[in-house]
């Protein structure tokens, strides 16, 4: 009797079990949208008005957090990371670096002065940025460069 019942329970009724994938796809899209909205990947904006120098020993940045970007164009203009805001003089540059340093440190990151200078710009303009960074207490400086021409 018992084996008959067991056989009856296990009897194939002809309906194949299929998994409904639609909830999983819904969840995947929801997760995708969630991460698209909340993620804030830190990337350095590229100023198209300048071409950095070439250095084959340049290495990829270990971390993009804490970067304080100053663009130095070929005419000596100092531009913020947004690639639009020009800094008229050394005082404006120092003010910008100081504010950015405080912002970065408040997030617990080590500030790094990231200089993107045009390869043709006279170095005296870059020196001004370095000096302004030293004045506000920036400890590290990184020069943007391409690995190859």
């Amino acid at each position: 009797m018992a084996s008959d019942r067991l056989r009856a329970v296990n009897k194939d009724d002809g309906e194949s079990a299929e998994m409904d994938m639609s909830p999983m796809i819904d969840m995947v899209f929801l997760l995708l949208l969630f991460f698209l909205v909340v993620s804030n990947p830190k990337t350095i904006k590229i100023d198209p008005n300048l071409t950095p120098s070439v250095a084959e020993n340049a290495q990829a940045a270990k971390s993009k957090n804490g970067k304080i970007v100053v663009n130095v164009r070929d005419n000596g203009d100092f531009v913020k990371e947004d690639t639009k805001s020009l800094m008229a003089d050394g005082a404006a540059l120092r003010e910008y670096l100081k504010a950015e340093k405080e912002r970065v440190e408040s997030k617990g990151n080590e500030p790094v002065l990231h200089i993107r200078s045009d390869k043709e710009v006279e170095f005296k303009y870059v020196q001004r940025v370095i000096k302004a960074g030293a004045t506000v207490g920036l400890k590290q400086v990184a020069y943007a460069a391409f690995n190859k021409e």
Partner: protein
Amino acid sequence: MARHKKIQAPEEDEPGLDISSLIDVCFLLLIYFLVTTQIIKKEQELSTALPSTTPSETPPDLAPMLILLEANGNISIKNETGVIELLESDSDARKLPNLSARLDLHKSAADMSSSKALVQIKVDGDAVSQRVTDVLNSLAGAKITEITFTDLLDPEAN
């Protein structure tokens, strides 16, 4: 004979999603992005420490090497006897073999004396940024990170 003929059950209509149009659109998008994408060269960096972080309370065991970069791109060093020695004069050359060789020697001497290899760079303000990068590139190649620019006290540089 007719009695033994089995009656076939009518086939169930299974609703199926036609994904061919989805694949068409995906391929169209793929081709569009393949055609329109511009590959941007990835920027790297050369890292150094600012002069203010290089303490000079105690004199270093090994004297720092002084590199001089002129406005025309000439690169010289001040050797141990105080004589200025021209090493590189081709401002279009990105590789600086003579300077690299001297930097390697300096680094080896520093390693042997268990001290840090210090380098000072005096750059003419009119020198182009690429030429300074060439020097920094050679320093990175020699794995020298203690770099000081000596011209930051220039009164015009503010």
